[in-house]
């Protein structure tokens, strides 16, 4: 059943129709929140809060797709929660410097695992260094692969603004990653 059909059932008060939407979008939203906040606990809270807010307001959703709407709510939640928790204690999945410790892929050998970890670390640091609007733009586009139109709905800005933010964000991301040997091996040789 597609999103709109589920939304219709929600509007008629069918609580069960909301559950498939949660299953459909929870991992996508969690990944987005993890890239935006850099913290697994905050990201899980973002997803929980997003669906709590959506449950209350989704039946009255107008003028956007369900997916774009959920991303809009999640972006707002990410902003609020990350700001509230900026001084909270370190999470168990972080190291002493607050970096997220991604669990290694068991299918990779030791060297590939190290490289995967280093790339993930470089990406996380580079994203967190971006100004908020640009971080959101590049995450929605290149992590969640939203269309320009979906992003315009999710961010309540014109498509032209979406394109310019993505362009600027990608440029900043590339600049931030330039010195990372895990992403650009030639940079390592230069050291």
């Amino acid at each position: 059943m597609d999103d709109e059909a589920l939304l219709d059932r929600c509007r008629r008060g069918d609580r069960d129709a909301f559950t498939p939407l949660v299953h459909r979008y929870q991992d996508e939203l969690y990944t987005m929140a993890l890239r935006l906040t850099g913290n697994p606990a905050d990201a899980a809270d973002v997803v929980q809060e997003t669906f709590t807010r959506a449950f209350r307001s989704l039946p009255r959703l107008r003028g956007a797709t369900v997916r774009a709407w959920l991303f809009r709510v999640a972006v707002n939640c990410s902003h609020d929660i990350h700001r509230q928790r900026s001084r909270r204690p370190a999470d168990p999945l972080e190291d002493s410097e607050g970096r997220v410790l991604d669990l290694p892929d068991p299918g990779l050998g030791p060297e590939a695992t190290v490289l995967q970890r280093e790339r993930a670390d470089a990406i996380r640091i580079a994203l967190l260094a971006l100004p908020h609007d640009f971080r959101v733009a590049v995450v929605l586009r290149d992590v969640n692969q939203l269309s320009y139109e979906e992003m315009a709905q999710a961010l309540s800005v014109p498509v032209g603004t979406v394109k310019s933010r993505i362009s600027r964000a990608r440029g900043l991301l590339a600049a931030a990653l330039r010195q990372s040997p895990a992403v650009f091996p030639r940079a390592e040789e230069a050291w």
Partner: protein
Amino acid sequence: MVSGHVESLFSAAYDGELSPDARAAFDRHLGECSACAAAFAELTTAVDTLREQPRAQMPHPVRLPEGSPVPGRRWFEVPARLSQGRRRLAGLTAAGLVVAAAAAAAVVVVGHLNSGTVVPSSSSAGMSSGVALAPGTAIRAPLPSPQSASLLPEVGLLPVCSPKALPISKAEALEIPTGFPNHATEDNGVSTGVVATQASSFAPGATVDIYARLIDDSSHAVSLPCTVLVGPQSSSSSPGDDFTMAVPTPVAGLTVDGQPLLQVTVPATAVAGETYDILVPAPDAAVILTIQIS
């Protein structure tokens, strides 16, 4: 990023958004300009690396709120004396605050949504001019029988005034002032509404100072919303009982941190044991704060 003649096209080129002609010209330039070629390769590698990051999994199940996504609703008719010939409810205060109810079906909808209250949006087509009232004036009208929400068009209490913009931050707006312990906050994903009073219990005829703020979740713009007092509700309320609607208004000199508060008078006819609701309408929803009559 190395500056180049086609740097502004990198992102569109990456997304395959260039027309065939533009793409051909772009590729020709990269063939002639090593700086642009290197910079585009760098951007491509960076974005590819981001895109190749594995999708994460939500570590624990999402817990949904209790109840139905569509709340139960209570229904009130537009006060008869205001709907005569106009099929519209409006309170126009000296401060220019206007609260209007929907035109077509002549009903005001006030529904509960968990801890908050929903005031469904409505069409304002065909509305005529409102009825002028003094600030804080109470309107009395009969309370009709509850009706099935699904049988009526979605109409409601619609503030047609423009909320007054306040030059404060979202964080400041959400910080409920000291001395306002009775408060409610609701965020529907579009707007966040806050309403607070100095007490939860008031005597008939008492003056109620109200802290009310509405925040746009996207822009974080803060405003002083159009707020409404409605009631009474009591265990003995039944269809046909009168109810009151009043419009709290800003009062000169009544401020917190330099920003305005609202004020309304509890109807002298209120009876101990009844409750009244203070509504802060937001797009497609509202925050409700209940006060007791003592």
